[in-house]
């Protein structure tokens, strides 16, 4: 690896991490706006309005007013507030673990992005200042990308479990218990559900899977059951309704993060949304063709224009999925703990196995 590559990677890490953290703050706003839309309300729309009267800000008024109307300053205000809030560490917690948990949660959520392509990879033809083709992936060329994402995704739950355990609070403890059980249950259908598409594409490399879909059809068409199972498991993995049991406000107050305040609580918040983003990326890449637009794009197209089109296509699909996930949250009630387990063990795992066997048979038959 040359120095240039290294620098490029660092730059990409900075950009991806920076953008994703910023995006997360705004995803929370999007979530609040979607909630408002689902509930026939307006939603946040006035943080910063009073600032416009201040002498220093008067000049910015024409610029700021429309942004304020959309509530775009609310995430910033939330951030500022969390930053200046007292950080309470209750006396009865297990201090090292209590401090470690939010760090784990956010770190694991962030580093999963390392292997997720957010655009075309390979000979993109998008040359950056003569340094070579830009790879729209932080660590290109990792051929076991899926395994990495899954491994990191499993680690992330330690944040939740440790938070629940170390808080020394009964609600947190119940949340952690639910979380560990839920994770073990849903890792299985999650893993099983993608084996089909891996068999078809014959690769664990996320880029190769996109390329296959680009050449043939989207994964959702050859693996509809796999897609459904993966989507459901993804909801469970990201702790979103109807599977948000570790948190479940109506039962466990705050669940695993009941005892966390200020920025530590914010880190869990960020981590949760980062997971949503990762999950949406995976669904897009595995089943919705990644950057592929049918009949329009193919691997051979190179140059900045096509690269950007592909990046945009990918991000658009991810964005729509995120909105879907949020929409579900404001629509459905929650499963009960044992029903969640039933769903995983008695329905989804058998279906996933069936899907795997069927796919394997067909693949074998087709290839002769």
């Amino acid at each position, binding site marked *: 690896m040359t120095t240039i590559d290294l620098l490029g990677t660092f730059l990409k890490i900075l950009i991806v991490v920076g953008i994703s953290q910023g995006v997360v703050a705004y995803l929370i706003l999007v979530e609040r706006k979607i909630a408002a839309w689902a509930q026939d309300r307006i939603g*946040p729309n*006035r943080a910063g309005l009073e600032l416009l009267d201040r002498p220093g800000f008067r000049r910015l008024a024409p610029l700021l007013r429309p942004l304020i109307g959309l509530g775009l300053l609310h995430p910033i205000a939330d*951030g*500022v507030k969390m930053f*200046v*809030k007292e950080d309470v560490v209750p006396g009865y917690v297990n201090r090292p673990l209590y401090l470690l948990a939010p760090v784990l949660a956010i770190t694991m959520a962030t580093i999963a992005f390392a292997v997720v392509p957010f655009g075309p990879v390979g000979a993109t033809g998008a040359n950056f200042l003569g340094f070579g083709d830009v790879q729209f992936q932080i660590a290109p060329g990792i051929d076991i990308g899926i395994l990495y994402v899954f491994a990191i995704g499993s680690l992330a739950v330690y944040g939740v479990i440790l938070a629940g355990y170390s808080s020394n609070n*009964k609600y947190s403890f119940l949340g952690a218990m639910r979380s560990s059980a839920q994770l073990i249950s849903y890792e299985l259908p999650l893993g099983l559900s993608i084996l089909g598409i891996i068999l078809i594409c014959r690769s664990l490399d996320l880029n190769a899977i996109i390329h296959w879909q680009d050449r043939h059809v989207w994964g959702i068409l050859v693996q509809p059951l796999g897609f459904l199972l993966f989507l459901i498991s993804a909801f469970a993995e990201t702790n979103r309704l109807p599977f948000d049991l570790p948190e479940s406000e*109506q039962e466990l107050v705050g669940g695993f993060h009941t005892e966390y305040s200020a920025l530590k609580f914010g880190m869990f918040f960020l981590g949760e949304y980062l997971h949503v983003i990762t999950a949406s990326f995976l669904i897009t890449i595995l089943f919705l063709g990644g950057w592929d637009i049918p009949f329009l794009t193919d691997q051979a197209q190179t140059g900045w224009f096509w690269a950007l089109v592909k990046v945009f296509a990918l991000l658009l699909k991810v964005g729509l999925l995120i909105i879907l996930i949020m929409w579900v*949250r404001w629509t459905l009630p929650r499963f009960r703990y044992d029903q969640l387990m039933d769903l995983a063990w008695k329905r989804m795992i058998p279906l996933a196995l069936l899907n795997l066997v069927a796919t394997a048979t067909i693949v074998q038959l087709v290839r002769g």
Partner: protein
Amino acid sequence: MSTPATHPPRNGPSVIRPEWTVTIDPVLQKELERHVLVTDWNKLIGLVDTIYNWGRRSSLWPLGFGLACCAIEMICTASSRFDIARFGAEVFRGSPRQADVMIVSGTVTKTMMPMIARLYDQMPEPKYVISMGACATGGGPFKEGYNVVSGIDKYLPVDVYIPGCPPTPQALLHGLMALQKKIDGETITDLPWYRRDVEREIPVPVLGPDLIDLRTLEITAERTALGLIEAREATLEKPPRIPAPQPAAAEPAEDAAPAAPPSSKLDKIRARVQGTNPAAQGDGETSAASAPPKSAPRAARKPKVAPVMPSLRWLGDEGLAALADRINAELGPGTATIVQAALLIPADKLLEVARFLRDSNVIRYDYLASLQSVHYEDCIEVTYHLDSTSRPGSLIELRVRVAEPEGQGKLPSVVSIWPGADFQEREVYDMMGVRFLGHPNLTRILMWEGFAYHPLRKDYLEPYYEGPTKVLESRVEDGQHFRGEELNPHGTNIKIPQSYQGWNSLDPDADPKGVHLIPPSAAVQVAEIDSESFVLSMGPQHPSTHGVFRMNLRVDGETVVGLKPVMGYMHRNHEKIGERNTFLMNFPFTDRLDYLTSMANNWGYALAVEQLMGDDAKVPERAEYIRVIMAELTRIASHMWSIGFLLNDLGAFFTPALYAIEERELILDLFEWASGSRMMCNYFRFGGVAFDLPDGWLDRCQAIVYDRLERRIDELDRYLSGNEILLERCRGVGVLTAEQAIALSTSGPVLRGSGVKYDIRRAAPYGIYDRFDFDVITGTRGDIYDRYLVRLQEMRQSVKILKHAVHDIPEGPILPGKKSYQIKVPAGEAYSRTEAPKGELGFYVISDGTTGTAYRYHVRSPSFINLTALETMCLGHTVADVVGILGSLDIVLGEVDR
């Protein structure tokens, strides 16, 4: 940053900083100031302040806890009509660790105060407190209650007070903006939470013999030892006591006593304030300062006596006589004596009679409608109202008398015969000190263990007691105006017996309310694997307990193996206050029982007093129709709310609830238009209603009833009833069989959900319900889903009734006579039964015919008694189910704890 003490005031002389002492050319300085953002220390602080304050003011996350009526308006503030989200403040956090502002929404009771102080301490700085409504600000209408803290600011530093009872959502929004303004004015240099010399932690007050603030412990102990309270009470006029009713033969002699005072109450009080004796004005009343009223001479004029019957619909005189004969033949003569249309039973025969009535009588009295107690001059009487689900409407009343002195009354518990007596007997024990032998868990239910008194006894005077009846002297304009605090030697709402000694053993970490209610560890066996169970105290501050309800759960993993409801956190002394109020004054208090259904409560209370008043309060036709319209609209609004929040408890984040609230808002508009208030309507009067319907009201009502409600009910039905998750969560969960439901005295949709066709509107019709054609909806399985479905269908039936009523309503008067503020209620006893949205709402009223106040006033609250069934329904289910089951019971804490 250095400590704030060294900072200059913002516009004062600037601190000398070596690098800034160079003189700068003023022109250059101006240029610099224009183009460089920060030029001096004050401006820097100004900039930091701007960002610091702006971030906090735009992101005020409230602590998600509601106390009472105000909490309902707080929730409405989040609904689409008001949308607190616009301010970025819709993020109600269940955990105090993540909240910025505590909205104290409702009456702060002594039982709740330690919890609130603890929650406040758990919130991270910067934290703010909004005192929402009259109660939180100063005790409000309940200030005179013995369990009410007269203002949250006695303990917490309050930032914004919002007036109103309850404040409308707009007022809360205004309060929020006022708080934002306050934050805008803060500067980082002198914020209390950065100062070492400011103690922000609140010492948690202790529930001892009364609520004791540890900051004033010593002075409280000193004043108590001096007996100042007792000394003051000795000078006050005590509430009169009347003798217990006697069998018919002895009645005339006994009853020759009290006289109706001819002069108005206000005149008497005026006179008293001016120092003259009202007795001297020749009305024959007992003189205020003389001996206790027990021995007071009574005037010769006989008070009017109300028709003698326990309730409007009952077994009837002949039936009762036959029943008494049968009991006497069966269980020995002298077992049952008829006293004022009720059976007087000796305490030692109670269980036999109860068993006979339930199992062997022709009419099976399987349903204990209500149980209450009255403190008479010579005894404490416990009365039981019984009805039969197979022959509804054949209500009878049993009386059992026990010794009057405190702590000596004992009688057998009927829990083994009617399990629904459980909480009601505990309430009688708590309030009157009567012991029930054989009760499985005879502990205080509304107050806490260790509270020094039994507050509903006539000899208990509240800390702010001033006189036996209102209007209180200190409130009269031409007299001197006092606040309750000034009258009490402690300067606050506490009263501790002089003999109290345990000052050194007061422990802020003790849990006097919950400690006796830890569920036993082996109630249900579930686990095959060897695991340990632990106790989880859910509430009183919890997102899903519908207020300040608390459950002590014993959980094994997630399975509930034991459950004990703990209540009383909203006990605001409704009954004690009701015994001081004149009959008319009590109307607004009934609004605040179940604050979602004020119209229905009004009706129940009006009905009880109308029963006493007889033909004086004959309701005109138009008023009857208005009453039905209002009650049915209330039912729809309440069921809407209930269904919405059941879904919320099941995890559907507020969306169904907010849609349901939308419909409720439309109904509240109608209420506001007719009565002047959204929630606390105070609209009914004895014999009618307070105002006629305004012009255009009926058209609007018609439009809503005919064109909108059905559509919206169908919409709820379409989206919710078939939802798989809802079905999975609700089917077969929290099952209550019909037998259990009857035995546990549940009522309303809970009873009907279990398949018992028992609706007071049909069982014991009141008003003009017998004219309307509607079905009594019942379920089949008795699970959460059936209760949900019953409520949904009942809304349809209500719409049906409304369509008729709105169409048929005649013109005419709305009151039998002129509007009157002098209500004369004849002596007697009445129990009214109405089908409120939550279930059977009963008001038990005894009037002595003279004082103008209720001698005894008891509310049979459906929410409270339905909770008796909670434990049965929850055992063996999971924590998540408990939340759903509680939601399906549809409790309102104002009514549970009263």
